[in-house]
């Protein structure tokens, strides 16, 4: 489905989500407040987005940007669902009950960024060892084993 057609369809079905929808680089993205993420994700699933492609996060300094790529087989389209959580209180509700594919994806985001997914059935580290201290993909992560790249390289 064309991205503009998708926007019309979304605006006709959910008028309250319409102003949050934007088109960046030819790709749709829906940015919502973190407390509204679960309801927005539920609405998107009802709209026909039946496939969760990936969950990831970006360290933006003060906040973490959570990115969900959701796709629809029926409409042959995909959009990004985004939410910003604060660094001090990185809590967000899990979308495991909507798409079970979120299970390991959210565990990885927890492993690398320390974002707590409330309602996740089994939130523990997935790639790093269980006794790991800290969250390595945060920009302020420090590790005694890490060697910083010198300026001249």
């Amino acid at each position, binding site marked *: 489905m064309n991205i503009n057609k998708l926007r019309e369809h979304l605006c006709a079905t959910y008028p309250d989500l319409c102003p949050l929808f934007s088109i960046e680089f030819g790709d749709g993205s829906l940015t919502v407040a973190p407390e509204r993420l679960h309801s927005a994700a539920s609405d998107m699933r009802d709209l026909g987005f039946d496939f969760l492609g990936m969950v990831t996060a970006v360290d933006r300094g003060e906040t973490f940007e959570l990115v969900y790529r959701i796709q629809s087989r029926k409409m042959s389209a995909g959009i990004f669902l985004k939410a910003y959580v604060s660094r001090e209180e990185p809590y967000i509700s899990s979308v495991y009950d909507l798409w079970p594919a979120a299970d390991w994806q959210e565990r990885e985001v927890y492993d690398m960024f320390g974002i707590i997914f409330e309602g996740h059935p089994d939130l523990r580290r997935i*790639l*790093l*060892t269980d006794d790991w201290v800290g969250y*390595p993909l945060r920009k302020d*992560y420090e*590790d005694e*084993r*890490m*060697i*910083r*790249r*010198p300026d001249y*390289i």
Partner: protein
Amino acid sequence: MALVDDLGKALDRSPGGSIILTSVDAILDWSRGKSLWTMPMGTACCAMELIAASFSKFDFDRHGTIPRPDPRHTDVMVVAGTITHKMAPAVKLLYAQMPEPKWVIAMGNCAISGGIFYYDTYSVVRGVDEFLPVDVYIAGCPPRPEALQDAIFQLRKKVAGESIASGRERKVEYLLPRPEDPRKGDLAAEAEDGEDR
């Protein structure tokens, strides 16, 4: 290998035994060098070259270098790829399961020093020689199968110099000059002089 070790010591001490010892050494070293079965410890992209080396174009079977998935059948561990801190205990365990005598080839820059993952990384072991005794290093990212072939030949030369009696190992002359210990280069000498790097 206890029996062979004792035999080697006894032959070395007995009068005229060295003639038998060198003959036994020659046979053993020849047979070991010509059938270096590999434990393919492929963890990253170097494994592609390692796999390519086994197949028909390069055909390492003709050197007697056959990959075996079981460490108990193998002589050489080819560490082909990045080793992370989580993977390192598994590599160590597989190495411990290999029967003596055993050798290690560090294939590619990641297995030598961590390669491109040397700086700014939290998870990569900087070189497999942090926890394994490496015999041959192959540089490259990744190295060609021809480089692996050369490593097998270099290792064969090293194997040819070994003796079942300890202290009787022959000195091997390599094509390229190599330091006794690759870690004791100029940098180590500078560090010993007390220069702060």
